[in-house]
């Protein structure tokens, strides 16, 4: 249904400064306007506009049959979205917190992810499942988790995690237009500002950050393409979401000339950018907020080892959350913050 547009030169487009929620809202608005098949559903997304305001104003603008509240039943939300996709719609369900997605897993793993394969392309599931994830907001164990590795393990799903308002808009538009099911995790700690890992310092808003400059109108950031946030020679940092900002801040503070890569899409991963960087720097640190064992960092570490072994000058470092539930009062003890990252940097660089 979407009409072809000549690619917008992002340099020429008028821009606005947006926080990540506004950027996501803008992407949804643009896709609702462009494609009548796009519908939004989820708990509290309608009249109220979502608990994080991501869908604010959209029901009023596009009507109740395209933006509506759902029963509190994630299995039903995803299951109904699969049926709507089979009809020909392009649903964008919201799961209010990533921690709530588990009752919908069977519909995602056994159904949405397998529909194209098992029907040899007769039926597809062009869903984009948006969900806020990650901690650092005193959400306790049921409003803080980072379950991305559950989804990267599933053949047929794509997993996308933006780190900036600029990317959030372009990636979300690309995800909605994608004909495969996409899990779109939004790092809620950085909805309102780029968090540097220092929870005891004042929060910076997005409007002081370059990546809050968001082009107006339609643009896409292709899935499967990483972003080199900062070029450097000393080591490669592989991160996504909130941890891009934390790792960048710690490297700057320690004066480390790091090459920082924001993966943006975990599956399919941009292996070329990763390989090229590690082969150049010879050192690699993988950072994520999720628990350690069988986390996506294990996959990254294995990929780097398999493909860049003879370029490595030190063991790959994995900096992650601990293998515990996300604790409420001790959440900063869980969080892979500046101290944990700093230690790993010291080990990697060996006092260099």
């Amino acid at each position, binding site marked *: 249904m979407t009409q072809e547009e000549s690619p917008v030169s992002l340099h020429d487009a008028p821009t606005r400064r947006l926080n990540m929620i506004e950027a996501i809202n803008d992407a949804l608005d643009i896709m609702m306007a462009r494609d009548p098949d796009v519908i939004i559903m989820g708990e509290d997304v309608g009249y109220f506009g979502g608990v994080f305001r991501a869908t604010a104003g959209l029901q009023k603008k596009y009507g109740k049959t395209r933006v509506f509240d759902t029963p509190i039943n994630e299995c039903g939300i995803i*299951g109904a979205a699969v*049926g*709507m996709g089979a*009809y020909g719609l392009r649903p964008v369900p919201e799961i209010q917190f990533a921690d709530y997605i588990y009752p919908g897993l069977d519909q995602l793993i056994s159904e949405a992810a397998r529909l194209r*394969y098992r029907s040899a392309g007769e039926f597809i599931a062009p869903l984009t499942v948006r969900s806020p994830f990650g901690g650092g907001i005193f959400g306790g164990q049921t409003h803080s988790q980072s379950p991305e590795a559950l989804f990267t393990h599933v053949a047929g799903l794509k997993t996308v995690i933006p780190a900036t308002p600029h990317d959030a808009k372009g990636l979300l538009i690309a995800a909605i237009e994608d004909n495969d099911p996409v899990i779109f995790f939004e790092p809620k700690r950085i909805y309102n500002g780029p968090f540097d890992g220092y929870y005891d310092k004042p929060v910076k808003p997005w409007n002081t950050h370059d990546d809050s400059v968001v082009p107006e109108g339609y643009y896409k950031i292709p899935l499967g393409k990483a972003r080199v946030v900062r070029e450097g020679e000393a080591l490669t940092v592989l991160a996504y979401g909130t941890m891009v900002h934390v790792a960048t801040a710690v490297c700057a503070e320690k004066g480390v000339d790091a090459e920082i890569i924001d993966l943006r899409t975990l599956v399919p991963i941009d292996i070329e950018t990763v390989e090229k960087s590690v082969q150049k720097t010879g050192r690699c640190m993988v950072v994520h907020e999720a628990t350690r064992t069988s986390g996506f960092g294990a996959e990254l570490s294995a990929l780097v080892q398999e493909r860049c072994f003879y370029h490595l000058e030190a063991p790959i470092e994995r900096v992650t959350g601990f293998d515990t539930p996300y604790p409420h009062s001790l959440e900063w003890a869980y969080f892979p913050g500046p101290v944990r990252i700093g230690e790993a940097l010291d080990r990697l660089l060996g006092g260099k």
Partner: protein
Amino acid sequence: MAESRKPLGKRGNLPPLELYVPEPKFRPGDKADFTYIDAPPAGAQARPDEGCAAIETSALCYDLVRVLDDDHRAVGPWDPKLDPDTLRQMLRTMALTRAFDERMYRGQRQGKTSFYMKCTGEEATSVAAAYALASDDMVFPSYRQQGILLARGYPLIEMINQIYSNRGDKLKGRQLPIMYSARDFSFFTISGNLATQYPQAVGWAMASASRGDTRIAASWIGEGSTAEGDFHAALTFATVYNAPVVFNVVNNQWAISSFSGFAGAERTTFAARAIGYGVAGLRVDGNDALAVYAATQWAANRARSNQGPSLIEHFTYRVEGHSTSDDPGQYRSAREAEEWPLGDPIMRLKRHLITLGEWSEDQHEAMDRELAEQVKAATKEAEKNGILGHGLHHPFHTMFEDVYEELPWHLEEQAEQAIRERRTKWPEWKE
């Protein structure tokens, strides 16, 4: 310090609590006595208006809608009054379903495929329902609704290619036998996971309604998998959005070796589940093709006129094992099928047509022979495309296709690996 938990003493004079675990009435070696099943007389059930409030169907949820009486006549307000041609077509499709099942079951036993599932005794629950729906209404079947495909004229050879997972299988040998997909016949891809199709049918129906379409959705589930959370999700979504969907629960008494008591059948009926959601419920004699047709027509008309969803419990009996991998002789009485009080759906429709003077034993026998030949011919034709495990599968690269719309780098690498392995094992191999 963990202290061992001792049962507390008696609370007053109350006896201790007892855990109840359901047990079917008959096990292997037992005589099957179904006199406890209350089969009310045909024609005795009221037929409420299709637009009635859901609550007005309450009594029907505990009754049994029946049309064919003991003298093989169609009686009462639910008689759909079908013309003899339609009745003969329905009979023929049910007989074709049975002939197809026989042949495919034998094929599995002969090693032509890995797996098969018959629907013997349950043919009416899919065939008669399919006749009552529009041919472009979207169906979300479970795994025992082959009768729908046959009713909609899906080519036998396509079904057999799928069952053999051969070169002609348009699902490219990816799915377990009988997990068909037929978009052009408005037949959704069968999952193999249970109950997932229920909320999907609701979503499809919601989409159709949101577009001002006229097509409705229908879905089938076994009584056993009504216990899944998806069932609750589907009924909740359907009632919230007044979705144009017809839910079918095929209560064939058995879920592999677990009798319907493990889905709650000892306490209430499956149709009665509907009322709690504010969904219309009907409980029908699933071996009475005319009752199935009439109930489906009622529910379809209700859905199509924006009057909301319905749930139909088809009370029937699974005459065969769950699948070719099952041996029901291990857990249930062999006498159950013959003692089943609601008879056989094909026999009952046949006798009805004979009673009407529109059919005869000779015609029926001739039809059965013809159908057996038709299935045999299709089987021979399909076998030209190969049978499972005999090399005539799809090219290796297809294994990696359709995981995503486009092949990502890691699957391209893995495809190369798979093809290399094949060449190593069979150096002379050509795709």
